[in-house]
């Protein structure tokens, strides 16, 4: 008699999502929920949601969630973690949120080595507000605010956040993963689990950058979007682990 081998994780609530068809936010949500289930910390996890498509996180996760102002999730998470050090605290942010409006917060939180986990979903545009240019927008990419394509002379270059944060002393784990096919999803699952493991072991700040597609604002079909992630984003945003602390050497 066949047994069920794959089911919805307990931490992910049984609700339909508001995401567009094929949006990998849903996959990233599931991977975070699976990591929380894996460590059995659902009862003591607090999520910090930010402004963006991930703002309805409180509906989709069966954990306590705080809404932070735009970009300020790492600052709010710092307060939560310092007030309740026994809790597992994670933030879930997009690229308009973490790399643009919240750059200062993320850098200083990482530099202080706060023992929190950050899931950073990079889809190269401000998804929820209608596809404006973000700091991570690819060169030449057309958005509603760069109708002729992003030009480095006026708009600069896309920021590689995972590499940049990996240079800071306080960071225990910094990795970039993608969700464009099944193999990438399995690797992403390992990385997100590792990031939570860092927090459970009190190693310091952990960040996972997840490359995602925004099919609606890129104006492509879901399958074309996944192909674009593989062919255009990954060459500029290489996948891998940029920093992994093995012992509590910061003490």
């Amino acid at each position, binding site marked *: 008699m066949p047994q069920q081998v794959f089911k919805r994780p307990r931490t992910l609530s049984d609700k339909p999502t508001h995401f567009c068809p094929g949006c990998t936010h*849903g996959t990233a949500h599931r991977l975070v929920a699976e990591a929380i289930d894996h460590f059995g910390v659902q009862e003591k996890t607090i999520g910090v949601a930010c402004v963006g498509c991930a703002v309805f996180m409180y509906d989709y996760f069966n954990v306590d969630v705080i809404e932070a102002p735009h970009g300020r999730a790492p600052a709010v998470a710092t307060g939560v973690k310092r007030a309740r050090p026994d809790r597992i605290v994670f933030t879930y942010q997009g690229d308009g949120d973490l790399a643009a409006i919240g750059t200062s917060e993320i850098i200083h939180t990482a530099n202080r080595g706060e023992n929190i986990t950050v899931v950073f979903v990079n889809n190269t545009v401000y998804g929820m507000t209608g596809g404006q240019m973000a700091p991570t927008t690819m060169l030449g990419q057309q958005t509603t605010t760069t109708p002729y394509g992003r030009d480095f002379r006026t708009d600069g270059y896309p920021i590689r956040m995972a590499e940049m944060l990996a240079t800071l002393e306080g960071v225990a784990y910094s990795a970039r993963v993608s969700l464009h096919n*099944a193999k990438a999803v399995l690797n992403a699952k390992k990385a997100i689990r590792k990031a939570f493991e860092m927090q459970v072991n009190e190693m310091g700040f952990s960040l996972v950058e997840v490359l995602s597609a925004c099919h609606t604002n890129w104006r492509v079909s879901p399958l074309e979007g996944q192909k674009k992630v593989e062919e255009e984003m990954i060459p500029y945003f290489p996948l891998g682990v940029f920093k992994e602390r093995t012992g509590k050497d910061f003490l």
Partner: protein
Amino acid sequence: MSSVTSERKQTEAYIIILEERCKSCRFCVETCPRECIVIDTKINAQGYHPAKFEGMGKCTGCCLCAEVCPDTAIEVFK
């Protein structure tokens, strides 16, 4: 000599697709190594053509379709 496909043992594994959750992104259709999933012609309440399982006996229960499904609409039995 018969082809490799016909010599394959009939498998017991199967998947259940939650039709009302499916948004027809086709990731599972592209991912399935044995082509067990197709897009249905009917329309669900959200207005999408949901994915449909048509691989009884072919499915190995590898879970790859469920891993890529952004809406966690697939349950795998093996």
